[in-house]
């Protein structure tokens, strides 16, 4: 891994989430993003209303459904809103 390379993670959108973003996949620059919560903030800037779907204000964030994380090595950990994001991760939003 080169020192000055921009870290990327890969997003996949399913169903009504794909309708929200207008696409089914994209590569996202995660340079300033630390964890799931930060990732949702970042996506919310690009697609207004995105964060509310997964973290409704005063509502419940459930890490077992709604977002699937797959690491580059194939592992699929159970996540919550503070889970860290790494380069090469594939996140499926549904």
């Amino acid at each position, binding site marked *: 891994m080169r020192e000055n390379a921009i870290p990327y993670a890969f997003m996949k959108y399913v169903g009504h989430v794909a309708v929200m973003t207008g696409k089914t996949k994209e590569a996202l620059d995660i340079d300033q993003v630390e964890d799931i919560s930060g990732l949702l903030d970042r996506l919310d800037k690009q697609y207004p209303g995105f964060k509310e779907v997964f973290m409704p204000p005063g509502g*419940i964030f459930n890490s077992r*459904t709604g977002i699937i994380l*797959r690491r580059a090595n194939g*592992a699929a950990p159970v996540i919550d809103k503070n889970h860290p994001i790494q380069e090469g991760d594939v996140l499926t939003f*549904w």
Partner: protein
Amino acid sequence: MYGYTGKLLRVDLEARQARVEAVPEDWQESFIGCRGINTILLYKEVGPEVDPFSPDNKLIFGTGPLEGTPIGMGRISIQTKHPKRFIGEGGSGGHWGAQLKFAGYDYVVIEKKADEPVYILIDDSRVEIRDAADLWGKDVREKNLILRRETGLPVEVACIGPGGERLVSDAKVMVTLDHAGGRGCGTIMGDKKLAAIAVHGTGGVKVKDPERFLTAYRRFRKLLDLKDTIDPFVPSWAFLSANMLLQMFSEQGWLHAYNAQRGSMESFLNGEEYLNEYVTRPESGFCCPFPACGRRFEVKKGKYAGVSGDEREGGFSIAAAVVGINSWPVMLKFRELCSLSGIDEFMAEYTIGWAMECYERGIITKQDTDGIPLTFGNEDAFIAMTEKIIAREGFGDILARGSQEASKIIGKGSERYLLTIKGRELEVMPQRNGYQMALALAVCEGGPDHTRWYPPYPPNPKSIPSDLNLPFDPVKAFQTRSVEDKGRLVKWLYDSRAILESLPTCVFIVRNILGIDLRPWLDLYATCTGYDCSLEAFTEKGERIVNLERAYIVREGFRKEHDTVPRRMLEEPIPDRNIPPMGENLGLMVDDYYLNRGWDLKTGIPNEEKLRNLNLDFVIDDLKSIRKGPA
């Protein structure tokens, strides 16, 4: 009478006569209706001495007390003794069930065989058995049009297609054009030479307490609201149904790719492309609350231009991985073929997938397959072989018997690659990835059938009402790769879905907390029919139905060794997601399940004490003679 009509129509195809009987009231109390009463009818009238292809086998179409109301969703349950000797049962949606209810009947029992093709017309109290020479051999769409023209009424039709007429294994009954039900029932219907049942009804369904029924219904609709629901399945399922799962299954390695040798494909179908290019408009069953659980599609360009039809619940697209195909026009052409001819998509996909693996391993060659190279991903071969199965010609005639029978004919170790449980092909639910699904598939009384316990996904734990006493631990039980607490979870899934399918209602709207909390359903049942009971008594009815189904297959000779999953799931890992095989975990879970059920740990036969508690004393005598023999 509220909700129920209490009438059973018994049709003798040989004598061409029909008569109306009353349904015993204590059955309605003990078994609710639909699937529940179908089971007790089948148990009492089709015993172990009856051969499935003899005139003494019966075909039962059943509805329930909530049918004809908006919560009933037009669901029916079709039951018969399956050619493999377990209970061949399938539910179906559409509009036929509602018409039967409006015509004034709860059940239709078909007996004996006709010597020439016939169809039954039910128009309120007028029941006729007519010649069907002009229907036999036609596809499902044509049968619908001919019947509407011939009867002059806007009838709803439940019929078989050419697949059922030619006795293809696991053929289905096609209800209201594209809704399919009763795996295996289509074969028996074809054997009885019954082409179709056309129903038209002008009556209604009485409700005991309409104000409270409306309140209960509004609460039910609120739980499925697109925005307010806290179940993330709902917003996407409401438009794409199971097509939303395509990419998710692929990500997690849940696909049975290449006959379950791998868990994912490099590039797989996605539901969004389907929505963008092929969907034209929504189509639903009776009073479905979802905008588009079913969709009409049309292929406009390319090799398969002109293909059109309906699909709902999209499971056939997930099984495209079994044959290694990732092209929408091909899968839609396949769907149209299966809908018009009435064969089961899963049977075709899994049987052809198995044949593809045998071909790639050299067990069968081009000579056996009539010159068609059956390799994974070969789209033309897939469509050509499906057409051969429907026509029952050449190699298709061997495959049309199902993969288990075909492997007996082919031999050469091909049974090693079978993906069957109790002789019937799998459905797309994964096993090595989700142990609750593996257990539920293994112990199912009708071969692998996911509608008997669907959905197995956890609700949001923080949304579970605090005053609800769940019979299992929701955090431990839903962990996908541990054996903890699976026995109690699967027992709950089976019992609750038995109640829901007996009301009847559709298992695919069981989202949010509707799958773990039976109180909204008890409300709807009590306000409609006036039968009020405690939650425990209500839950017990489900347990009673499942124990009766188990007693039925025990009587036929099924035991614990039949409650297993295919060899591949127990011995081989999923290489591309590093998921190990199940090994001994399945055996541990089956033991746990039997323990919680009160069934004998060595044989799977329900204990006497359990049967007495459930008021199933008449079953004890039946099983006594079996217990005396070798276990």
